[in-house]
């Protein structure tokens, strides 16, 4: 109803002013701005007041405003904007063009990325204040944002891959930002290598899709048309879908490549909020949504695999979140779980795309909020552990209230953002995949439970840490308040009673009308309430032992993360390190070095031979010429008697001879 009014008003405006039509043509500038800011910070940052942060904030501020203008185009009912790209290069029949593809999904992602990134940029002014590599931090932050925006806006897979890889590098750099501690650099390497394992199938997926188009294009829209055509090989498309999902598994940290995300929390907390909660990890989900045509035309078992992986991840991660003491790890496992929630939505097929992305959209705001709130806590108590916190609600009121809003939104409390997106996912699951519905419902209960535990352990009870914690400065609480506001209101964009305008922007094939099933909403709310009540009962009073330790065996398994990390270390990392690396070392020492030494020996022999030729023949000729000249000079020098009159005689004799010669000729 509201949407209809908004659409009508805005459509009228668009006709007269054309503002939105203008903005959308320049959507690519949003992605360009951070790429301009990054070198500016790098080269001039240390000489400008504020150590360069101002460039990043200005770029993101401008980008956010432009992203809103682009979204306005879709609010007013505008269509997809996908102009011809600029020729990049061509290999035989393969024409590569770079350009922008702006549809509702792109616009929403642009707003999310710029909004969260802007909040994080501002927040970091306080959180990173006085850091040794403050300027460098902002360089990478800007670079990362630009890369993510490139992924969002790219109209072809190769450009998307470029942004995708830059994000990977930035993630690596930021996780290892405090690389002086071995643990942090190890976490960075782990994250990089694990996501890289996912990137390999992604790359091969791109190859498969290029092959499916008859080796002509990497343009996403053209690939979509091509594989929808009758001549597309279904086996190839199925393979491509599986490979692309492999990339998404790596980037979005789904089982079995989820192990890097909890360790990625070694990075500075604003980075965790931006990269490892709100944006980069969403790139995998985005990829699946963007390439959904491939998944639709693939064999149906692909989506079944997707749903199974989503279910394993969402349940497994939710269990792990129950037992963590490190507040960032609670949020990290929660992120895993919620990302799997989104993937579960996508696995429902075309009907689930809107729901999945709506959850991505709302989750970005409240999860960024929770991470920034956790950062504020860590900033105050200088510890990540909830066992060092407690009773902070009076000392840190702004952090407390915003964190509470974020937690409630994540738990799915009516009428906050998480409620609406979770409800839409539950409705979709009930209609299309009922066993998944029960998994998602169970996770909803656990989500509410562990967030309640987290809030109670940090803000209630008695403070047990050291020192006197204080509320964070306004540059940190400001973004918290902004994101809290967003966490309250963005849910209404998808509320069925208000027209569910989100479904008009982000959909697959045709606009999505959100169904509202009253009993599902009630069940969802009951699930959240059950989780909150359960958490409240167990953690109302602070205890020495966590009440969940009553199940020691389960507790142990969860503390060891199901032994998956250990299995990877024993099964993959150690064998490679101990055996494969020894073999590689032997090959290096004997085969490669042998080849290098052999080449050097041959070169040396040849050089000696050439040197002999040079000295004997070439030098011989030169010396002979020199000697001959010297001998001739030695003989001729006796003409120089020093007697002037003798010279004059020769001169006259010469004149006489010449005269005779000329006369004879004449």
């Amino acid at each position, binding site marked *: 109803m509201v949407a209809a009014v908004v659409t009508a008003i805005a459509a009228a405006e668009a006709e007269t002013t054309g503002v939105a039509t203008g903005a959308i043509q320049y959507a690519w500038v949003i992605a360009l701005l951070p790429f301009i800011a990054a070198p500016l910070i790098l080269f001039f940052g240390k000489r400008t007041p504020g150590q360069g942060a101002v460039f990043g904030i200005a770029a993101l501020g401008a980008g956010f405003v432009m992203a809103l203008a682009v979204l306005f185009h879709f609010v007013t009912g505008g269509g997809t904007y996908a102009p011809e790209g600029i020729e990049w290069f061509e290999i035989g029949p393969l024409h590569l063009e770079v350009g922008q593809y702006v549809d509702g999904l792109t616009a929403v992602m642009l707003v999310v990325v710029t909004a969260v990134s802007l909040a994080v940029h501002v927040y970091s002014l306080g959180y990173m204040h006085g850091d040794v590599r403050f300027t460098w931090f902002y360089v990478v932050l800007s670079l990362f944002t630009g890369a993510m925006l490139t992924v969002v806006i790219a109209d072809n897979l190769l450009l998307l891959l470029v942004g995708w890889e830059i994000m990977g590098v930035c993630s690596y750099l930021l996780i290892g930002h405090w690389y002086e501690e071995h643990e942090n650099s190890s976490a960075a390497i782990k994250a990089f290598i694990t996501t890289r394992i996912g990137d390999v199938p992604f790359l091969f997926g791109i190859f498969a899709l290029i092959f499916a188009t008859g080796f002509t294009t990497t343009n996403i829209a053209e690939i979509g048309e091509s594989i929808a055509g009758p001549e597309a090989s279904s086996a190839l498309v199925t393979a491509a879908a599986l490979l692309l999902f492999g990339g998404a598994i790596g980037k979005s940290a789904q089982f079995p490549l989820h192990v890097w995300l909890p360790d990625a929390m070694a990075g500075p907390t604003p980075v965790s909020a931006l990269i490892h909660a709100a944006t980069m990890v969403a790139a995998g989900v985005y990829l699946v949504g963007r390439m959904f045509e491939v998944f639709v035309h693939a064999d149906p078992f692909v989506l079944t695999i997707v749903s199974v992986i989503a279910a394993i991840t969402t349940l497994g991660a939710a269990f792990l979140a129950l037992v963590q003491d490190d507040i960032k790890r609670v949020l990290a496992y929660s992120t895993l779980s919620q990302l799997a929630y989104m993937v579960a939505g996508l696995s429902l097929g075309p009907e689930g795309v809107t729901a999945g992305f709506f959850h991505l959209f709302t989750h970005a705001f409240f999860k960024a909020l929770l991470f920034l709130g956790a950062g504020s806590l860590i900033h105050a108590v200088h510890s990540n552990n909830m066992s060092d916190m407690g009773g902070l609600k009076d000392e840190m009121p702004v952090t407390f209230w915003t964190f509470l809003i974020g937690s409630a939104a994540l738990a799915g409390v009516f009428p906050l953002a998480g409620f609406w997106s979770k409800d839409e996912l539950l409705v979709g699951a009930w209609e299309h995949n009922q066993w998944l519905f029960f998994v998602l419902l169970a996770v909803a209960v656990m989500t509410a439970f562990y967030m309640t535990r987290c809030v109670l352990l940090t803000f209630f009870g008695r403070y047990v840490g050291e020192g006197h914690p204080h509320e964070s400065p306004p540059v940190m609480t400001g973004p918290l308040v902004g994101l809290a506001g967003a966490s309250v209101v963005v849910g209404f964009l998808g509320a069925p009673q208000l027209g569910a305008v989100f479904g008009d922007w982000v959909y697959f094939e045709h606009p999505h009308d959100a169904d509202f099933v009253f009993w599902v909403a009630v069940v969802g709310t009951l699930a959240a309430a059950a989780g909150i009540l359960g958490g409240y009962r167990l953690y109302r009073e602070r205890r020495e032992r966590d009440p969940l330790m009553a199940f020691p065996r389960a507790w142990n398994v969860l503390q060891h993360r199901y032994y998956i990390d250990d299995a990877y270390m024993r099964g993959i990392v150690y064998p490679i390190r101990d055996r494969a690396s020894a073999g590689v070392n032997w090959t290096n020492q004997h085969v490669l070095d042998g080849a290098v030494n052999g080449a050097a020996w041959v070169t040396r022999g040849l050089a000696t031979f050439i040197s002999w030729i040079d000295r004997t023949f070439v030098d011989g000729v030169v010396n002979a010429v020199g000697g001959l000249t010297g001998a001739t000079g030695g003989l001729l*020098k*006796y003409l*120089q*008697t*020093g*007697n*002037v*009159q003798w010279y*004059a*005689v020769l001169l*006259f004799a010469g004149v006489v001879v010449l005269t005779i010669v000329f006369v004879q000729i004449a």
Partner: protein
Amino acid sequence: MIRLPFVLLFSAFLFSAGVYGVLARRNAVMVLMAIELMLNAVNVNLVAFSSSLHDVGGQIFALFVIAVAAAEVGIGLAIVILLFRNRASINVDEVNLLKW
């Protein structure tokens, strides 16, 4: 009016006397004077042809040659004076340092 061949014979004699002086005399001053003889033989030739061909250019050229000869003698005598100061002799046979 003296006929041209007589004048040319005279100048040839004068030139030969100059050549002999330059090649044979030991005294540097005498060598310089012999050079003047050769220049004057040239002057005589120039004036003779000028008169015979009714072209005044030759006489003007002779005037220039006289001026140049004066300058040349100035420099030549200066060299001779320096030579005498350094070697206490103006015998050109003794001035042969610049040789192999």
